[in-house]
């Protein structure tokens, strides 16, 4: 049976109470549940294992930096291949201390996606089996997709061209 995002939100807030924030339906095409960073892994476990929800697939995990000043966010797009319904989770992490629990042992998709978010946004996922850079070189400095990123002048003696 298909469960609407609204019903998923209600069931999550009954189960997790204070840890679940607002339910965002405006300015998004995928109704989003705000989750406190500390409980995110538990919420994912619940969504996956609950009989009536069965979210067995993590479609996408994206890091995001809105403006280079406020908190970073991580967005999880979930899908149930069995029941054919969707759910989007969003969580905020501190810029300076961007740490969040890994969901790589719940959804294996998250393994590489978390490495990507770590690589480009510098978000640390605790409990990840092998957290290291994936697209960039190991010795790259900084996190390029952060809005306040300034590229180094040289990389291993090669000049880095300025974008714009």
């Amino acid at each position, binding site marked *: 049976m298909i469960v609407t995002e609204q019903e998923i939100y209600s069931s999550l807030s009954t189960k997790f109470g204070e840890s679940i924030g607002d339910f965002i339906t405006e300015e998004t*095409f995928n109704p989003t549940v705000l989750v406190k960073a500390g409980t995110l892994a538990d919420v994912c476990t619940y969504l996956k294992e609950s009989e009536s929800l069965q979210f067995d697939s993590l479609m996408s995990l*994206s890091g995001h930096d*809105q403006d280079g000043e406020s908190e970073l966010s991580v967005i999880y797009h979930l899908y149930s291949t069995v029941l054919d319904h969707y759910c989007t989770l969003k969580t905020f992490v501190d810029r300076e201390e961007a740490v969040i629990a890994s969901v790589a042992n719940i959804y294996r*998709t998250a393994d590489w996606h978390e490495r990507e978010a770590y690589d480009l946004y510098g978000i640390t996922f605790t409990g990840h089996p092998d957290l290291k850079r994936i697209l960039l070189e190991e010795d790259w400095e900084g996190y390029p997709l952060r809005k306040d990123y300034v590229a180094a002048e040289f990389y291993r003696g090669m000049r880095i061209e300025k974008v714009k």
Partner: protein
Amino acid sequence: MARLYAEEMVLNMGPQHPSTHGVLRLKLTTDGEIVSHIEPVIGYLHRSFEKHAENLEYQMVTPFTGRCDYLAAMGSEHGYAMAVEKMMGIELPERVEYLRVIFAELQRIASHLVAVGTFGLDVGAITPFIYCFRERELILDLFEMASGARLLYNYIWIGGLAHDVPPGFVEKTYEFLDNFEKRVAEYNQILSGNKIFIERAADIGVMTPEVAINYGVTGPSLRASGVNIDIRRTQPYSIYDRFEFDVPLGEGAQGTVGDSWDRYYVRVLEMQESAKIVRQALDQLPVEGDVQAAVPRRIRPPKGEIYFRSENPRGELGYYIVSDGKNVPVRVKMRSPAFSNLSVINEIGHGWMISDVIAILGSLDIVLGEIDR
């Protein structure tokens, strides 16, 4: 009989290796001829697509999307255009929708032809590769006729197409279909039913549905494991709900469901289904209609975000786009199908011989351009 364990040796396959379909490095931990662990090392083709997209206006991102998945540029452009159109609430003229479906499905055939041909090449069958490229050339001719380019098109624009197809395009496409539908039997004769090929591919690298879903494997590789998920069906976009087509699933005809042979054969069947869709779209194609009618003069999607997914030849292509109401996106993330499809390689590839790893990798049909972006 108990297995003997020898000293392990780490072997680098790639970055420059003919069977890695681009610049991919696999760190193989080998125990004799048996591979005990595979660690893919990617990023050699990283061109910072997402960083570039944050500095470009929406319509300027389109050519970049094609350069990510260069074997299915039409599909990438189509997905991106649809995502932005949905944000802006653009209604497209019928003719645009039909032409887009025709191009997306022709692209699927072209991409699968490369997949099928190179997979044969990987396991030692050189002739089928030439056969596949023969037909692919004809599709590229059609693309060239319409857009002027053979590989990277920038043809599907936000709100429409770059320009209408030239006179004679429809007839030439019919001609291609008549020819192509007969050719598929040739592939089956020369490759699918080939004894040596079956020995190399059947029962190798079996992927169970649970593993596939958990790793985010999508597209033909997922359906080969018997999971009936095709976004064109489960969440129809564009006008895919108007066409009749089957979703081929792996049946384990030569071995086990979800083996390399199934992943190969699902693609062969899918090409035939795509040909069916193209034929129906051509039959129903409206004659009148300005393909530029709905192209907005200023592209400024309202503040908000979207995750839009479409079925690319390799699987689920998702775009996560965040807009703040300006003409430049705040964030464009591409959830590329081959990225997740490749991540499963250790799970299904360890415990096999090195030569089998080549077959498994070939059957996954990866394009490094979209993995590294």
